[in-house]
């Protein structure tokens, strides 16, 4: 038997993965793994799919595999939104959760989510805009947030909090609340608790207050790269000016933007989601939970904190921030923590990402309802997460479905336990 190949391919892609939009799309073999969770981890027929879009709409176009076909058709000039009333809807109805990407990577080194995001950017660049996005874009351009709120009202969540304003004073740590926490009164408590905890942990923390702007994540996921870049550069500059070394957030979208994307825009800040920080302190013994919190809860992995937060190195595990929140919940006295069937890299999305919450509210709510059902099936009293977008969407879905399930942010439990 020969030890080496007698004829070696001249194709460099044979030997080493490198990203090319067309090549990745061509490499799609239509295996359909992008629609299903990992079969090894499957626990029931009912909760076995990973792609909300394909599960809801069924036709193959509504899937990552479909988007690979559409990418090639668009790049080849075969298909244009003028030819197809559904084309833009199909491409934008994906919440960019990355489930397809994670499952595809079980099989091979392909970045299918990146193709979808690049496709959106191309369409935006070509002027093929989804009308439903315009209200978000308008809100960003006028008021620097995605929530249609007034810039002047941005800091209302922090009223009465004794915390440094980074436009006036320097601080080592910037807490970034994010658009959702800033403008959703139901979630102000999450931001306030986060700041108080960071102060309790002895950190020199400040906030940008009403001068805080969007992180740019949603704009990026929707294909508006120019908008994203604007916010990235603005935030990086603002933090530098304020002498910040570390950025902490309680929002998964913001975390993803700061940790994964901002380095490409020159950021050198350390970035933590607050759950990482709390888990670190627990591990070091710097803090301890002393109060019992008798409840049965389950935890939802936000996509931007989970599989989307993984650095992609071909072959390496898709490690997002899975363990930190679980470690926190396990250490809370009196708390019973039960897992849902689809967790970590197999987590079912909340339905709020990628501009879907804004542009396709019915599908967004349907997606969240599926997750509420899955959470309820564990017997938990509450679904806990670490992202305001997830929590808001679950709260709306639970109300719509008259579910008794409570929706909590993990900081609500941490605050009670400390």
């Amino acid at each position, binding site marked *: *038997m*020969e030890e080496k*190949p*007698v*004829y070696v*391919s*001249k*194709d460099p*892609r*044979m*030997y*080493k*993965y490198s990203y090319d939009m067309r*090549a990745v799309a061509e*490499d799609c*073999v*239509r*295996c*359909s*793994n992008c*629609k*299903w969770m*990992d*079969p*090894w*981890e*499957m*626990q*029931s*027929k009912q909760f*076995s799919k990973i792609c909300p879009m394909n599960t809801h709409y*069924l*036709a*193959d*176009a509504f*899937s990552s*595999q479909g988007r690979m*076909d*559409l990418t090639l*058709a668009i790049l080849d000039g*075969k*298909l244009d939104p003028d030819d*197809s*009333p*559904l*084309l833009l809807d*199909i491409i934008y109805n994906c919440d960019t959760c990355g489930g397809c990407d*994670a499952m595809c*990577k*079980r*099989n*091979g*080194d392909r970045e299918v989510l990146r193709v979808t995001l690049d496709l959106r950017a191309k369409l935006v660049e070509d002027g093929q805009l989804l009308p439903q996005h315009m209200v978000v874009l308008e809100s960003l351009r006028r008021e620097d947030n995605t929530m249609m709120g007034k810039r002047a009202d941005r800091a209302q969540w922090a009223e009465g909090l004794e915390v440094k304003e980074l436009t006036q004073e320097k601080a080592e740590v910037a807490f970034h609340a994010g658009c959702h926490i800033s403008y959703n009164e139901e979630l102000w408590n999450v931001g306030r608790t986060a700041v108080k905890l960071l102060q309790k942990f002895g950190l020199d923390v400040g906030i940008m207050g009403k001068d805080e702007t969007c992180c740019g994540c949603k704009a990026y996921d929707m294909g508006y790269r120019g908008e994203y870049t604007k916010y990235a550069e603005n935030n990086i500059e603002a933090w530098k000016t304020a002498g910040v070394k570390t950025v902490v957030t309680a929002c998964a979208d913001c975390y993803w933007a700061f940790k994964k994307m901002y380095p490409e825009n020159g950021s050198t800040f350390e970035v933590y989601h607050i759950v990482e920080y709390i888990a670190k302190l627990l591990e070091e013994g710097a803090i301890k939970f002393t109060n019992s919190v008798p409840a049965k809860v389950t935890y939802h992995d936000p996509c931007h904190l989970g599989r989307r937060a993984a650095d992609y190195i*071909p*072959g*390496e*595990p898709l490690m997002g921030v*899975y363990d930190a929140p679980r470690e926190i919940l396990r250490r809370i006295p009196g708390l019973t923590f039960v897992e849902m069937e689809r967790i*970590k*890299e197999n987590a079912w999305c909340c339905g709020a990402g990628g501009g879907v919450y804004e542009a396709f509210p019915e599908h967004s709510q349907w997606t969240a309802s599926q997750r509420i059902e899955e959470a309820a099936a564990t017997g938990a009293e509450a679904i806990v997460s670490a992202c305001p977008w997830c929590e808001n969407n679950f709260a709306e879905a639970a109300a719509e479905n008259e579910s008794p399930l409570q929706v909590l942010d993990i900081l609500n439990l941490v605050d009670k336990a400390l």
Partner: protein
Amino acid sequence: MPIDDERHDEILDALIEELGEDYVFDDPAVVECYRREGQSPSYTTPMNPEFVVLPENTEDIQKIVRLANRLDFPYSVSSTGTLGAYAAALKSHWCWIDPKRMNELHIDEKNMYAVVEPYVSHAQVSVEARKKGLYNANPSAGGQTSCLANHVALGTQTSGYRTGRANRNILGLEMVLPDGEILRTGTLAMGQDEFFWGEGPGPDLRGFVRSHLGHLGALGIVTKVAVKLFPWPGPAMLPTEGVAPQKKCVLPDDRFRWHLIRYDTTLEGIEGLRAISKAEIGSVVALFGPWNMSHHYSTSREEHWKLWDEGWFHRFGYCVLVGIWGVTSEKQVDYEEKVLEILVEKTGGKPVDKELTDKWIPHVAARNVIDPLASRAQRIPTGIPPAQGGGIVYDSLSDGKRLIPDHDDLAAWIVPIDLGHFAMHAVFAAPGAGDKSKEAEEAMKAWQMAAFPKILKEQVAEAGVIGGPLHMVAPAFGSCQHTMAEKIKKALDPKNVANPGRFINVEAMEAARKAAAEKAQQEKENA
């Protein structure tokens, strides 16, 4: 065909009237996504279907088929679409039936079978069956593929050595014939609502869904099938560790043992397979060439080539995998291992060294339970080189055609089925990254025709896979199956609307006969 032509509109309106507008698509973006998959020849398939429809149940399928006959439009069916090449459109006004709404699963624990509709995946059956101490065999194509589809087409499964060809494990079935009549077999035909028995009086109509590739929807659409389940000696939930793609699953050692046995040539490996088969030990038995050992294990191109350059995969040689499952007891495991040891020595095999098995087995072996990730083979653009030891890596099918005849040993993957009474030898190839031309497709077909008689003659007793309609394949092997198949096809599908051109291309046969007759007439006149 322009989608605003009158016939298109007539068919569209009729489909919408039957199924509702939410489940009928002719949007160019939707139909574009029903055109290709990673296996030749679909890379060169030129057409989109004009319609994609999503029926909810057997009655909906019946409505579509009756419409197709009335309005004379062709249709095909494919659910997960893994073998989408065989459903891709070949003609105008093609309707792709996507049965994703048909996803009912029912497990009869006592009688050990599962009734599945088209869009129930192997993994779904597997997890529900394991909860009841049962196991369903699954194909290399993966846990996400349709359980029904695998049982009626291709039908090779990782445990096929023990559990047999999938299409022999069908009990009762229900299908819609090309004229719209609903056929139910076995106990279902006796007026009962039970699937447990598949045979009925007279000829076994399950013959419709037998043969190696099945009829690909050309003789009807199977809407429900009962598939046999087998005893499962393992845990309900698989014990996994880690995060994708670096995931492990180590099944309990008292009931599951995996052995990798090295042989220096394919023929020696085949003798090993024969000996093991005769002794009737093992639950999963297969022979892999070194390249296969790679694609099952490696999670990236870099990893594959690093291990290749280290000589890792050549240390596997031609590797016979034996999975011993203690289905009856732990004693069965001990006994079979002792027998295996004797057979390995007798046939000149050697255990693959422990360093390799300790790495390979935890990541790969349990994939023979569910989800073998065969699609990993297609990560690297040129797929699996079929030649000696995986010694050739080629850029195009044309290169393959040129290089392969110089190499005698065409091992890739050999699976004994039914305890060795049947075997499948699969030689995989995929076009290179830049090679998706019509010429490449022709080169692939020509290579198949050239290579397989050689394999038949020299290496294994049974035929390999030929992906082509019967009228092309059968004459090459001297059989008359195509003439019989033509008669059956014409009887069942007189309008030739059920996936025309696949299974058997009656139009091509008619055209060939007509051309031959004209030629004979011309020659007669000239004479």
